[in-house]
Structure formats: structure tokens, C-alpha cells
């Protein structure tokens, strides 16, 4: 080893300390496959969809280019059916997000306080919907909610109801299933954000005589605010754009935007209208998420000042 020429040694060290800096071509080569894939199968398709949404009708052989218009968007915003649908979608997203975060926060807090097999058990249960197919959990809920199914039998045994109860195809049932589906995402984000709280801050507060609610209010919640905001945004955008539960649990009785995108896109084949609805959904989700994170930023910054 000592006989190795100095020059070669230095060259080898250089080649490993920042390959990309020395050779930008290599970095480009490393990035190229993913970038090409994203350009051709992510960005271009979305641009084509945007273009399609501005066509009043699909191009045919006789009329290859029907000309651009905002007819599809106008149709969506003038029709009270679609406006109602948009409102239902937002309502569904808001209810699901609220329920999910309210359940996920205490669970995530508990997970950070335990270890070993108990932690694995609780993690398995709460993260199950990520690892098990969504259809499986929807099927489970379907069985539970069926007329004369498990939930109704349990309620009847407790003497709370008699006769058939309508559970499937109701808004609360849909919120419950969507909450179930999206709880893991909130738990994951909140666990990592709660774990990042330095324990000496909590110890210091305890030493200074702060009560548990005070510690939660003044330290834990402000410090996990970014995680809370992130999980709210993620759960909101996922639940607003989900359509499997609305099809299988809501049985299409609760009209939401993704449902009509699905039916216009697959069954009815009215792609321009489906495309316009898709962009309405996309803009809605992005705009609400952005507005929420801006608002929370302002509030939580004030919270930090109070804390200091």
C-alpha cells in the first residue's frame, strides 16, 4: 500500500470525493433515466390532458382539431349539479381530515412513548392500510356495514336499534372508511414529527413546573405544527381525490368529483369533460392545501413567539 504512487492515490481520493462536482456529465447521466421517464410519462401526459380539457369535443378523423374553448369549464361552473358535487367533495375531505388527525395525533404520541413488541403491534395495526390492499379494507368495511351485518347486529344486541338500519351509502360511513384508509399517513408523519421534539425541552418545562396540558399546549403542539400541517394537507388531498370507497361504500349515491371523472373517463368516454373535471379537482386540492399551509404558517409563527 505504501508503495502506491502518490499521484495515483490523490487521483483516487479525488475521484471519490464528489464525482458529480468534478464531472457534471456523470450527474446528468445518473439523473437522465428518471428525468426522461417523468417528462414523457408525467409532464407531457398532464399537458395533453390540459389541452384536451379545452376542447369542446373530441377530435375525430373528419374534424382533427375542433378548436379551443372553455366550454367544459363553463359547463362545470354553471351546472348546479357539478357545484354541489364539488361542495360534497370538499366536505368529505374536510370531515375525513378532521377525524383522521384527531385520531392519529394521540396514537402517534403513544407510539413515541413505547418500544419493542408493543410498538410493533400498534404500528402494524395503524399502518395496516398501507401494507394491505385498499380493496381488502373496503371489503371488510362493506361486510361490517351491510344491512343485517356485523355493526347492525352489535347495535341490536345492545338494544340500541331495532329493524334495518341504513349504513352503507351514507355520508358518515364514507367518512369512516376514508378515515380508516388515510390514518396511516397521518400517523407516520406525526410519529416522525413527535420524535423530533428534543426531550430536554419537555424536561425543562417540567422542571419549571408546567402541567401536562400546559406542556402539550405550549411545547408539543407548536413543535409538531409542521407535521400537523403536512398530514392535514396529505390526508385532505388523498381523501378528496379517492373514488374507490365512494364507488363501493357510497354506491355512487354520494356524488363526488372523482366519481364523475371515473365515469366520464371510463364508461361514458367523454374525455374532454373528464379532463376538465380532473383539472378542477387538481386546482381545488392544490389551492386549498396551499391556502391552509399559508394560514397555518402565520398562526404557528405567532405561536412560536409566544413560546419564546
Amino acid at each position, binding site marked *: *500500500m505504501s508503495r502506491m504512487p502518490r499521484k495515483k*492515490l490523490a487521483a483516487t481520493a479525488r*475521484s*471519490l*470525493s464528489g*464525482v*458529480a*462536482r468534478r464531472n*457534471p456529465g456523470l450527474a446528468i*447521466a*445518473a*439523473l437522465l433515466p*428518471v*428525468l426522461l*421517464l*417523468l417528462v414523457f410519462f*408525467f409532464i*407531457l*401526459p*398532464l399537458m*395533453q390532458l390540459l389541452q384536451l380539457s379545452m376542447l369542446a369535443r373530441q377530435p375525430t378523423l373528419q374534424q382533427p382539431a375542433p378548436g379551443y374553448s372553455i366550454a367544459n369549464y363553463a359547463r362545470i361552473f354553471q351546472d348546479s349539479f357539478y357545484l354541489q358535487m364539488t361542495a360534497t367533495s370538499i366536505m368529505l375531505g374536510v370531515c375525513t381530515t378532521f377525524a383522521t388527525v384527531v385520531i392519529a395525533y*394521540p396514537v402517534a404520541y*403513544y407510539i413515541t412513548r413505547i418500544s419493542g413488541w408493543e410498538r*410493533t*403491534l400498534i404500528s*402494524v*395495526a*395503524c*399502518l*395496516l392500510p398501507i401494507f*394491505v*390492499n*385498499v380493496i*381488502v*379494507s*373496503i*371489503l*371488510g368495511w362493506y*361486510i*361490517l356495514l*351491510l344491512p343485517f351485518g356485523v355493526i347492525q347486529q352489535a347495535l341490536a344486541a345492545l338494544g340500541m336499534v331495532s329493524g334495518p338500519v341504513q349504513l352503507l351509502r351514507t355520508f358518515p360511513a364514507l367518512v369512516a372508511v376514508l378515515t*380508516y384508509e388515510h*390514518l396511516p399517513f397521518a400517523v*407516520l*408523519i406525526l410519529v*416522525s414529527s413527535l*420524535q423530533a421534539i428534543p426531550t430536554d425541552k419537555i424536561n425543562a418545562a417540567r422542571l419549571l413546573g408546567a402541567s401536562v396540558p400546559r406542556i402539550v399546549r405550549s411545547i408539543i403542539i407548536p413543535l409538531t405544527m409542521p407535521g400537523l400541517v403536512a398530514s392535514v394537507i396529505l390526508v385532505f*388531498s*388523498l381523501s378528496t*381525490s379517492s373514488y*374507490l370507497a365512494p*364507488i*363501493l361504500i357510497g354506491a355512487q349515491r354520494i356524488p363526488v368529483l372523482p366519481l364523475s371523472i371515473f365515469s366520464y373517463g*371510463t364508461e361514458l368516454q367523454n*374525455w374532454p369533460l373528464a*379532463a376538465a373535471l*380532473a383539472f378542477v*379537482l*387538481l386546482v381545488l*386540492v392544490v389551492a386549498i392545501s396551499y391556502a391552509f399551509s399559508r394560514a397555518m404558517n402565520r398562526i404557528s409563527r405567532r405561536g412560536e413567539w409566544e413560546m419564546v
Partner: protein
Amino acid sequence: MLGLRIFVYLVVALMLLPILITFPVALNAMPRISFPPAGLSPRWFLSILSDQVLLGSIVRSFWLALAAAIVAVAISLPCAFAIQRGKFRGREFLEMLITSPRMIPQIVLVLALLVYFESLGLAEKFVGLVLAHLVITIPFAFRTLLVSVATMDRRLEWSSAVLGANALQTFLRIMAPQIKTGLIASFIFTFILSFNNVTLALFLSGIGQRTLPVEMFTRMNVAGMTPVIPAISFVLALVGVMLFVILDRTIGVYRYLVGRE
């Protein structure tokens, strides 16, 4: 703390209930979905093995997930190195671009891909489905690998170089062992994500080419579902739980799923 504990175990019970309920329903002796089951029999579990359409969809889902996971990890790894170690401008932008497919609602993305594939002649083709799965799995594979690359100890590589190892030796003996767990985690996670995806295959798979989740969805959506669907559901749930426990006890799920250092 006791109140919290009761609440958490209540949530745990509610999370497990919908999955566990598929088991007694699948044991039904009658061809209908009911609880309590009308007579016990393992016939629906056995009928998975004789249901050619279902078996075909399982095989198709397996190959799809395998192809997507292998390619996603293989092309995301160099990306993760370039973004983590490169010193060029626009790294934050590229990182955002690569992870952006997970910000777009999948139903929007799949509609775009359906229209795009129709014009390219890729619709209802297996390769189109693989490409679509790559778009949605790469953000996760990339984030997971980025964590691994970021936590590598650079000093070991420098020592290796100083001691005269060439780049290949350094990669195989020093770098590969350090990112091994990250690679495995990212592969398993990508595989699960792709295997479980319903949306993409629902729009993009051809007639008679359904993947397992789409086949299950279709049988649930049209009336007359037999308990073979709860049976396959329970089997899938068992496999999912096993994979989860293995991942959590060996690698730590939180670290890799959240994708943060």
C-alpha cells in the same frame, strides 16, 4: 396515560376489525357474504387455487410489481446519489420534480396517461402499465434511497480510496453494505405499493388483463360476489402483515416510510 392507552387500543381494535372480519366470512359454507357464516368450510380458500381468472390476475400483479420495483430502484439509486452528492444548481428543483407525482391525485394522473397512451398505442399494453407504475413508485423509491445515501459515512470511502482501493472495490465493499438495508426497504416498499395499486390498472389494463386488485374491485362492484374474495383478501392481509413485521423488526418502518433523515 391510562385514558390514552384505552383510546389507542380501541383504535387498534377498529383498525384490525375490518381485516379480521374477512376470515370468518371466507369460511362460509354457502356462496354468499354473511356474518356469522352459514356453516364452516374451507372451500373458498381452496377455490382460490381453482379460479383460473383469479390466479392469472395474481401472476400478472406479481410480475408487474416485480418489474416496477426492480426498475424503480435501479434508476432511482443513481438519482439519489446525484442529488445528495452533486454540487450543481437546481438540486432542490430536481428533487421536487422527482417527488412531484405523489402530489397529483392518481385519478388525474391516470386519466392523463390513458389519453396519452391512446395516442401512442400503449393503452391496454403491459409495458404501458409498467411505465405508469414507475411514475408513481419512483418518488417513494427515490426518497427512501435518499435517506440511505445521506446517512452513509463518507470517511469510510475516503479511507478506502486512500488505502488504494479502486472505485469498484470501494463501491462493492464499502458503499454497498451501507445502503443494503435501504435498497431492500425501498424494493419491498415499491413492490407493495405497485402490487396494491388499483387506480392505474383499472384504467390502463386491457380486457382480460386485470391485475388482482382490479379483479377484486370488479367482482365487488358487480353483484354476486362469492366468499372467494374475502378468502383472497385474508390471504393478502396475512402476507401484508408479515412483510410489515419483517420490515419493522429489521429496518424500522418509520425511518424509511417517512423518508426523512
